[in-house]
């Protein structure tokens, strides 16, 4: 079997280039901060950052100056408040102006589906009566040939690179995910290149023992990165909890551009990779974020001969 295992540094070097459109997806869960930090360390620039919820990871990346443009549907620090760095960029052009392209959640999901399924548009019943179409001319409307009814449509979105975090994959990139599935599958199929980042590398036999859990097939995966704790302060279901304390702390840090820079110096530029970050985080934090067990029951697929 062809192994696609790369270090995060290699994967970002090889697949993320200046000017690229990059989607690090994951709805609250499975947000690959490890990849975002490596992109910052490699000082990529002029990226178009794509995410339904830019979250703290894109707040950090925008503060670090890697982004030129942001495509999104909800610009908040979930459960906390604002994304202060992104607001500074949009409201005051600090550190640089940031172009934005904005949808609703379902609009973003529809764009991913259209991109993944090679459709010229995705129809959805949304945007009627909203000012969003006026703010974004990519949101259009078409008439149904059946009843003449009008329905909104959004165009396909095909990121240059998608980076998806999950619990496990084999070395060929067959990836299994449980918990919040988000739009991980759709964005993976929509992207030109796919980097999968996982908590564990498993034998192909583990994947084949439960094929209904495979959300992303190795067929569309270009690189597999083994990065335990790679989603912190976001989380991987069953492996660790969301670090809410950090999300609250970030709200405070990020209000000030200098403190933000200081945080990036210490936690991104100041560590050489995720392993060092995890070590710096410390055993106490990792222990605090460890959940109890809640195992599913195995199911029988049957051996047919």
């Amino acid at each position, binding site marked *: 079997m062809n192994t696609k295992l790369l270090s995060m540094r290699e994967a970002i070097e090889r697949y993320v280039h200046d000017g690229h459109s990059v989607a690090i997806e994951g709805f609250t869960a499975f947000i690959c901060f490890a990849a975002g930090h490596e992109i910052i360390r490699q000082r990529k620039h002029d990226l178009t950052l794509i995410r339904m919820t830019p979250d703290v990871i894109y707040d950090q990346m925008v503060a670090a100056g890697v982004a030129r443009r942001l495509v999104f549907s909800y610009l908040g620090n979930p459960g906390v408040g604002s994304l202060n760095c992104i607001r500074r960029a949009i409201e005051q052009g600090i550190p640089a102006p940031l172009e934005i392209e904005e949808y609703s*959640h*379902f609009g973003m999901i529809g764009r991913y589906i259209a991109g993944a399924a090679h459709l010229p548009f995705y129809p959805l019943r949304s945007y009627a009566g909203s000012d969003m179409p006026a703010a974004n001319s990519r949101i259009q409307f078409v008439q149904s040939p059946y009843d003449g009814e009008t329905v909104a449509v959004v165009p396909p979105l095909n990121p240059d690179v998608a980076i998806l975090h999950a619990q496990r994959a084999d070395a060929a990139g067959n990836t299994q995910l449980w918990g919040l599935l988000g739009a991980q599958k759709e964005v993976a199929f929509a992207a030109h290149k796919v980097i999968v980042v996982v908590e564990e590398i498993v034998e192909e036999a583990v994947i084949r023992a439960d094929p209904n859990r495979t959300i992303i097939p190795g067929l569309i995966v270009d690189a597999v990165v083994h990065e335990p704790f790679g989603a912190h302060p976001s989380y991987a279901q069953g492996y660790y909890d969301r670090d809410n304390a950090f999300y609250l702390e970030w709200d405070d840090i990020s209000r000030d551009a200098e403190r933000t820079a200081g945080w990036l110096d210490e936690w991104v530029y100041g560590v050489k990779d995720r392993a060092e970050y995890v070590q710096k985080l410390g055993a106490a934090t990792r222990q605090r974020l460890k959940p109890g067990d809640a195992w599913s029951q195995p199911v029988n697929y049957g051996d047919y001969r």
Partner: protein
Amino acid sequence: MNTQPVPFAASEMMIVAAARALAGARTVFVGVGLPNIACNLAQRTVAPHLELIYEAGVYGARPTRLPLSIGDPALVSGSLSAMSQADLFSFYLQGGRVEVGFLGGAQIDRFGNLNTTVISAYAKPKVRLPGSGGACEIAIHAQKLFYIMRLSRRAFVQQLDFVTSPGFLAGGDARERLSMPGGGPRLVITDKALFDFNTPDREMRLFSLHPGVALEDVLDNIGWPVKLAQTLTVTAPPTDAELRCIRQELDPAGLYRQ
């Protein structure tokens, strides 16, 4: 029985009013914050068959702790179904399976239209707000729309800076004319009073003052001359049982007791 009223916070009154409005409901699309705790209270009181739907892709959540974000892992573990967000938005929300949706935002107008996008001009915002998320679709598809917002002149405005999510638009049958599947705004729950839209032109109407709140205090905090119901009621204060449930079971840390 001791009938001495227990003091309560304005946010507790909001939670309780929201929970009561869910009486008998079967499904609710839950947001973070107050709606979340209100839905959990309703499940334990007036709506035992209520199933919680989260835009993160969860149906039938049974969180073992108060979820701190809309995608808390405790929403998944022990839920009835966890699915892609495509399925959630396609088959549950757009499919018409959501009875009540909760929304809140920076600005609301008299017809229940909501702004969660910007203060001032879109292209050159004074304050950039979060934007729609799923709000625009919730506003269009939920069978009933409940708002939870603190009352203030900055929020209850004559003219929105941006319409993120449609309420009754220009009022009357404007919503029906756009063939919107959902029923539109039904209730506005604030820290001072309750409002409905039971008027011919679907304009917001004050119908209940929370205990101890003066009418003027409400009127002063609304940016237009708000309509009044023929009879104003006083909202029943939170019961001991409701407060006990909030304080002991749902929010022992007191995060929502300000």
